[in-house]
C-alpha cells in the first residue's frame, strides 16, 4: 500500500480531498521530510524523502499534515482483520504491507487470479492505492507486489523465471547491499542466478543468498498469523432464565470477579462497563457505568451498578448475561494497604480481606466523583484547573474531573498574586467617587456604588497592572491595560476593582468590580 498514510487521511476527510495534492510529513532530526504523497502530489513532482521546504518550493499550495504512525498502524491492523475474510492466515509486513497465505482458500473465490483481483479491487474501491502479487513463496509474492506487474500471479513452480527480470530491490535487501549490487551491474534478480554461490556469500555476507533462497523457496519462510486480541467480555448463560434481582446481582458479582481477575493479571483497569442482559424474548436490556479512573475492584464496581439494577426489566427472565469492559487502561499495582474505605461500612459486608488498590488519602475524592458522575454524567462533574495566564479570566478553566486528573501535573496556581474566591463572569460597572481628580492613576476611589449598595473604601492595596494579551483579539480587553485594586469596605468586605481606560486620560475613566474576596 504505497500511499497508505494519505489514503487514510482522504478516507477520513471525505471526497473533498480526492484530487488534492496532499502530503504527510514526518520529522527526522531537525528536518521535516515528506513521508507519503497522494497521486496528485506525486504527479506534481513531490516525492517521499523530499524536505518539506523543497516540496513547498516546488508546489507552494501543497497541503500537508503531520504523520500519525499509530493511526496508520491501526489502519493496517483493521485491514488485516478485514482480509481474514479471504484466509485466516494474515500477517502484517512492515508498515505498509500484508501477507495472505491463501493456500487452500483460492478455490473459494474462483481461483488464485480471481481471488487476487477481487481482493485488490475491493480494497481499491475503499479508496486505497494497493498493489498485489501472488507466488509460491512469500518472498516471490513480495517481489511481484512491489516491483512486478500489478496483480500478477505466478503459476506454481515458475517463480524462478518470473522473478528473473525483476530488479534486485525486489529481494528485500538493505539499501547498502542494493547499491553495491547496482554498482557491480547486477541489477536483475536473474543476474544473480549465474553467479557462484560462494562468491556471493564472500561478498555480501549472507543476506543476498538468504533472501534469494527465500524468494525461490529454497529456504522456508513461514507466515505467522496475527494474534487476535481477546475482547474484555465475560458471559454467563443460564439453563433456566433468572428473574430475581438478587440472582442478577449475584451473577453480576461473579462476572465482575472473572473480569477483574483478568484485568489484574494484565495490570490494567477499566473506565467503562457495559452490562447486557439478554431476555428470553430476544430483548436486550443494557446498563452502563463509568468511573473517573481505571478500576479493577469487583466490590467498588458492583457498588456503581447497585443503584441501577432495579432499572432492569426482567419480564420473562434473562437467559444470558454479558459484561464487557471498555476503556481498558494500564493500571499500576499500588502498595496494597489494609485500609478500610468508608464505603465498606455502608456496604455492610464488613469484610476487609479485599485489598484496596488506592493509596489512602484524605483528599481522595474519587469515590464521590464516581457517584456524582454516574448520576449526573461525567461531563457535568467539573473542577477548576489553573491555566498559566496573567489575565484573571483566562487563568483557570473548568474541565471534566477525570480529564483534569490526567493533566493536573505541572500547572499550579500562581504564587504571590491573591485572586478573589469568586470572579464575576462579567465585570460589573460601578460608580465611584474619588477624592483626587480621577485622571491620576495610582489611587483607588473613596466610595463606590455597586448593585445599588454604597461601599466606603477603608483600605486598599494596588495597583496590579495587567496588559491585554496583545496576540489575541479580545473585546473585553479592548480598552487596554487595567489597574486592579484590592479594597475593603467599612463592613470588612473585600472586593476586587479595576480601573480601565488610558492611563493618562483625564475624563473617561471607568471602574469595574471583577470579584469578591470574602
Amino acid at each position, binding site marked *: 500500500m504505497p500511499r497508505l498514510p494519505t489514503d487514510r487521511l482522504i478516507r477520513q476527510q471525505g471526497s473533498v480531498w480526492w484530487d488534492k495534492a496532499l502530503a504527510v510529513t514526518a520529522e527526522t532530526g531537525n528536518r*521535516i521530510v515528506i513521508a507519503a504523497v497522494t497521486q496528485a502530489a506525486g504527479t506534481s513532482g513531490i516525492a517521499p524523502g523530499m524536505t518539506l521546504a523543497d516540496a513547498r518550493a516546488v508546489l507552494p499550495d501543497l497541503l500537508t499534515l503531520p504523520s500519525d504512525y499509530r493511526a496508520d498502524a491501526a489502519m493496517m491492523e483493521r485491514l488485516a482483520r478485514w482480509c481474514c475474510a479471504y484466509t485466516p492466515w494474515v500477517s502484517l509486513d512492515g508498515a505498509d504491507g500484508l501477507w495472505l497465505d491463501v493456500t487452500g482458500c483460492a478455490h473459494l473465490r474462483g481461483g488464485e487470479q480471481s481471488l487476487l483481483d477481487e481482493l485488490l479491487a475491493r480494497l481499491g474501491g475503499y479508496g486505497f492505492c494497493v498493489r498485489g502479487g501472488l507466488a509460491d513463496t512469500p518472498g516471490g509474492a513480495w517481489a511481484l507486489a512491489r516491483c512486478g506487474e500489478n496483480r500478477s500471479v505466478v503459476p506454481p513452480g515458475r517463480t524462478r523465471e518470473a522473478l528473473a527480470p525483476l530488479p534486485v530491490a525486489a529481494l528485500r535487501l538493505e539499501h547498502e547491499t542494493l547499491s553495491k549490487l547496482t554498482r557491480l551491474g547486477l541489477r536483475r534478480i536473474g543476474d544473480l542466478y549465474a553467479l557462484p554461490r560462494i562468491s556471493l556469500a564472500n561478498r555480501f555476507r549472507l543476506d543476498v543468498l538468504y533472501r534469494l533462497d527465500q524468494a525461490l523457496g529454497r529456504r522456508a519462510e513461514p507466515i505467522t498469523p496475527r494474534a487476535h486480541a481477546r475482547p474484555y467480555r465475560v458471559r454467563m448463560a443460564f439453563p433456566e432464565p433468572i428473574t430475581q434481582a438478587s440472582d442478577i446481582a449475584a451473577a453480576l458479582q461473579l462476572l465482575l470477579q472473572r473480569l477483574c481477575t483478568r484485568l489484574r493479571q494484565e495490570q490494567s483497569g477499566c473506565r467503562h462497563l457495559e452490562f447486557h442482559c439478554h431476555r428470553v424474548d430476544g430483548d436486550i436490556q443494557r446498563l452502563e457505568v463509568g468511573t473517573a479512573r481505571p478500576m479493577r475492584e469487583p466490590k467498588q464496581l458492583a457498588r456503581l451498578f447497585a443503584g441501577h439494577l432495579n432499572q432492569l426489566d426482567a419480564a420473562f427472565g434473562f437467559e444470558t448475561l454479558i459484561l464487557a469492559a471498555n476503556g481498558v487502561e494500564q493500571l499500576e499495582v499500588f502498595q496494597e494497604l489494609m485500609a478500610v474505605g468508608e464505603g465498606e461500612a455502608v456496604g455492610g459486608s464488613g469484610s476487609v480481606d479485599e485489598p484496596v488498590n488506592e493509596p489512602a488519602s484524605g483528599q481522595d475524592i474519587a469515590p464521590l466523583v464516581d457517584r456524582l458522575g454516574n448520576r449526573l454524567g461525567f461531563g457535568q462533574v467539573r473542577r477548576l484547573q489553573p491555566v498559566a495566564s496573567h489575565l484573571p479570566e483566562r487563568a483557570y478553566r473548568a474541565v471534566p474531573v477525570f480529564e483534569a486528573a490526567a493533566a493536573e501535573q505541572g500547572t499550579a496556581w500562581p504564587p*504571590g498574586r491573591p485572586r478573589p474566591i469568586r470572579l464575576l463572569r462579567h465585570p460589573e460597572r460601578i460608580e465611584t467617587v474619588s477624592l483626587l481628580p480621577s485622571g491620576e492613576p495610582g489611587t483607588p476611589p473613596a466610595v463606590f456604588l455597586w448593585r445599588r449598595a454604597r461601599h466606603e473604601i477603608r483600605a486598599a492595596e494596588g495597583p496590579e*497592572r495587567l*496588559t491585554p494579551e496583545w496576540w489575541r483579539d479580545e473585546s473585553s480587553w479592548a480598552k487596554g491595560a487595567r489597574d486592579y485594586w484590592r479594597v475593603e469596605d467599612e463592613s470588612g468586605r473585600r472586593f476586587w476593582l479595576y480601573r480601565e481606560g488610558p492611563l493618562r486620560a483625564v475624563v473617561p475613566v471607568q471602574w469595574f468590580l471583577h470579584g469578591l474576596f470574602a
Partner: protein
Amino acid sequence: MEDSAAPIAGYAELDVLSNFTFLQGASHPDEYVLKAAALGLRAVGIADVNSLAGVVRAHVAAREAGVQLLVGARLRFQDAADLLAYPMDRAGYGRLCRLLTLGRRRARKGDCQLYRADLADWHEGQLFVAIPPEDLGPGDLGPEADSVFARYVTELGDWARLFPGRLYLAARTRYRGDDERRLKFLSDLAGSLPIPLVATNGVLMHGPSRLPLADVLSCIREKCCIDTAGYRVLDNAERHLKPAARMARLFRDYPDALARSLEIAGRCRFSLDELRYDYPDETTREGRSPQEELKHLTWKGARQRYPGRIPEKVSTQLEHELSLIGQLSYAPYFLTVHDLVSFARSAGILCQGRGSAANSAVCYCLGVTAVDPDRSDLLFERFISSERNEPPDIDVDFEHERREEVIQYIYEKYGRAHAGMTATVIHYRTRGAIRDVGKAMGLSADSIAALATQASGWSRDGLSDERVREIGLNPDDRRLRLTLDLAAEITGFPRHLSQHVGGFVMTRGRLDELVPVENAAMEDRTVIQWNKDDLDALGILKVDVLSLGMLTCLRKGFTLIRRHYGAAFDLNSVPGKDSAVYDMLCRADAIGVFQVESRAQMNFLPRMKPRTFYDLVIEVAIVRPGPIQGDMVHPYLRRRNGEEAVHYPSEELRRVLEKTLGVPLFQEQAMSIAMVAAGFTASEADKLRRAMATFRHSGTIHTFREKMIEGMAARGYARDFAERCFRQVEGFGEYGFPESHAASFALLVYISAWMKCRYPAAFACALLNSQPMGFYAPAQIVRDAREHGIEVRPADVNHSDWDCSLEPGGTVDVTGQAMALRIGLRQIKGLSREDGDWLVAARGNGYTDPLAIWRRAGLTPRALDVLARADAFSSMAIDRRQALWQIKGLGDEPLPLFAAAGEEDRGGEPGVVLPPASLGEEVVEDYAALRLSLKAHPLALLRAQHPDFASLTPAERLMEIPVEAQVSVCGLVLVRQRPGSASGVIFITLEDETGVCNVVVWSKIFERFRRAIITARLMRITGRLQREGIVIHLVADKIEDLSPLLDRLGNGISFQPELSPADEFSNPVLPQLKQQGKTRPVPRPRHPRDQAKVLFPSRDFH
C-alpha cells in the same frame, strides 16, 4: 501626597538590559540612549548580562546625544543573585573586563560562569547595585520564602563587607499589587544592613510599544509558543525608561532612593573615551624609533620597487604619508603589518593587501599592497585622515589554505593576553527572524517554511501582500500580520557573537583589561566582545588577516610553472600589458580567472573589451549591485563604445568623473559628488557612507537624502541626476568598492588571466588543487582545460598523486611544451588524505592488482572500494566492476598468515563474468565518484540515444542562429541564480557537450515552470535568442525537466551533477546554524559583503 509637587531632583536609570543580552533585552543600546536623552534623564547605565558587547554603540550614541552613559555589566552568578557592576575609573573597568573574561573563558562559547568567590579579586574601583531576587518579598510566607530571605540577607552582608560603601540595593515597582509593601520591605531590609536603597525600573525596552517584541523574545528563549508561554511573558509594559517625574511619583515615599541614582551616576565618571589604547611596541633595529624604522623600511622598499629612480610623484607622496603617519603615531601599526607580510613571504605564503590601504604609497613600498602609486591617483585621505580621527584599516589577504599559520604566528608573537580576534555580531536576518518569530507565534511548520522561502523577496518594509498570497497564506490574518511585523522589527537584533573572519587586535597592555575576551567556537581561538565598528569608534587598531582562495591557486600555479617549465614568476614579476591576455578576456574566455569568471562578469567582458589595466579596475568595480542598482552600467558602456557623448553635469564634477567617462563607479567618486556637488564636508560624506553601511539605522538615511538632493539642486543639478547619484551612494554603502580596492583585485584578475593565457595547464591544475573555490565546479574547469587543448588524464592508482599534477605528454600548447593534466586522488569523493598519501608513498614501481595496494599501502577494503568506484585501476587493465568485485572479495583485514603466500592464493574462487557497463553507466559512475567524467559528456550520449534530440541546438551553434529565432537547448544545470538586483528574474546556466548556454527566465515563466526549474538536473528550454556582441542569452518560454533521462542513462544509478557552489536552489531553506561546513562550503549570506557574494558569486572577493 504633596511629594509629587516637590521639585523633581532628576533621575538616572541604572538597570537596563539591551538586546546584547540576547533574547532578553528588547531594544538596541542606542535606542535607550536616545530615549534617555529625550526624557531628560541625567544618565543611563546599560548593564548587559555578563557582557560589554553593546556598550560601544551606547557610548557612541551617548557622545552624540549628550547623555551621561554609565558603562557596566550585570553580573549573573552561578551561586548568587545578580549584581550590577559600574566601574568608577579606568582601573575598575579593567577589573570588570578581567572578571568577565575569567567567567567567559571557563565556559563554552557564548556562555559565562561566574561564582561569588570570583568577585573577591576583581571588585575594586566599581560600584555595585544588588538586584533582589524576584521571589524575595512580603506576601510569600512559609519556609521556602524564609530560606530565600535568609540566604539573601547573608549574601548582601557578605557583599557589604567585601566592598563597604560601594554597594546599593535596587528597588523597583513591579505593579503586582503589592508595590507599597514591597518597597517598605526592601527599605527595611536595606536599613537593617545597612545598605542604601536605590530606585531602578528593571528596564527591558526603551518604550512600552516593545512589549510584544519582548514577549516574543521570551518565547524564542524559552522555546515555547506565545499561546503556551503563560507566566513567561510580561504582565504589563512597565519595564521601560521613565521620566524623572514619573519615577518620583512611584517613589514618592522614598525620595532618597531616587536621589541615590544620581549619586551613583556622579560617582561613576568612567567613560570609554578614557581607554587610552596602546599599540604594542614593534621591534626596531639599530635603536631606531618606530617612526624612524618605518621611514627606513619605506625608503628601502621604495628603492626596490623603483630600481632606477624613485619617481617624483611617489617620493612626494611618501613624504606626505610618512609625516601624517608620524603625526598620528601610527608607525608601529604599519610595522606590524609589514612584519606579518614579511613572515608570510619568508614562509612562502602569498599575500596582498586590499581595501583602502591600497591608497597608500607607504603600503606599496612596504610590500603590503601592489597598486603602483606612480600609475594611479591615490586618495591617501580615504585611508588615513587626521580629520576623521579614525584608525587606518589594513586588510591583507593570505592564501586560504595557509592563513592559519599567520594567525598562529600572531598569537605566538604577541601572546594570548595581548592579541585576540575581533567579534562579528550575528544579527537577525529576514530568514532567521521569520523562522524564530513564526515558531514563537505558533505558525505551522510549513507556513514558516513557505515564508522563509520568500525571504529573498523581503524588502526593508517586509513582505508584500502579494508575495504572502502567492504562497497561499492570507495577509489579512491578524496573527500572520503580527508575525510579519514582529519579524521585521526583530531584524537587525543581535543574535549572538561570532568570530570575525580575520580581524586581529593587538595591545601593549593586557587585552583583557580593555575588553572582555571569550572563547570562540574554534579551538585555540579567543575573541573579544567588540566588533569592527566598535573598534573603529574607539580608535583601536586592528589588522585584518583574511584569506583568498585565488592566492592559493596562484602560488600553486607559480610552483608548477617553476617545476615544469623552469620559469620563475611571482606576483610582482608577471609581465604586464600582455595583449594576448586582454584578447583572451575580450573573448570572455575567463573560466577560473579571478573575479571576472562569474556569469555576470563574463557577459560584461565582451562589451567592455578591456585593453588596459585600468579597464580591469573598472570591470571589477562596475559589475556590482551598487552601480547596477544605480543604473550606471549601461550609460558607461554606451559612452565607452562611443554611442553616447560624454558630458559632465558641471565642470567641478568633470574632475571627479573624468576617468570613468562621467559615470560614477567608485565609492570615492560617490563621496566626492556629495562633497563637490552637494556641499557635504569630508566627514559628513563619510558619515553618509557609514549610515548606508549599517542599514538598520535606516532612519538617518532620509536626512542625508534630503540634504544631498537639495544640496545638488541648489547648485543647479538636475533632480533626477541627484536622485540617481543618491541611489548609487545608497548601493555603495552596502556593496561598494573603493577604487583602490578594485585596483588591488584587478591586479589579481590580470595575473590569473595571464597564467590562464600563458600556462593553461598549470593554471587548470592549480585551480583544481585549490578547490573548493571560485565559481566553477571541477567538471567545468577540466572541460575548459580540454577545450584549450590540454590532455586530461584520469585519476589512477599508479599515476596520480594526491593533487592534480602535470606530466609530459599530450599535444604541444601555447607554452611550446606538451603537458598533460593528471587528475589527482583528491578528486575522488570519499578518499581520505591519509589513504591517498599512503597509496602514493608505497607505490614504488607500481601496483599490479588491487590486492597489492591492500597489502603494501595498508588501505582498507573500504578505501579500495572508493578507488574502484572512481575507476582508478584502469592502468591494471581492470575495469570498474571487476575491481569492485575483486575488492568485495577481500576480507576486512589483511590475513597475516597468507601474507607470505602468493597474493592470488586466497579463496580459490571461480572467475565470474559481470554484465558489462554501458558508456552511459560509466559516465554516470564517473560523475558520482569524481564529479566529472573524461569518457564522454552525458549530453553527447543522450543525443545519440534519443532521436528527438536532433531538433535541439547545441550550445556552440547558438552563435550562428539569428536573433529572436526560436530555439531549444538541453543541458545539465550548472547554476541557478536569483540576484536581488534583478527583481524576480532567474538566471540559469546549462551545459551540454559543446559549451554552456545562458538562460534568462522572467518571473512569470518561473511561476509557470517553478517545479522544473527548482528540481531539474537536466533541462530542455525553448525560447528566443538574444545577442549583444558575442553575448548570447536565451529568453525562456518553456522549460522541461528531463532528469529521468539522466537516471535512465545510469540505469538505476542516480545522476547528480555537481552544481556550482553559487547555485541558489539546491537548498532553499537550510537553517543557518546547520550550515557549517557539512552541507555546502559556502556560508549563507550574513554580512552585507557575503550578501554580495551570493549576488555575484565568487568565493574570492569580499
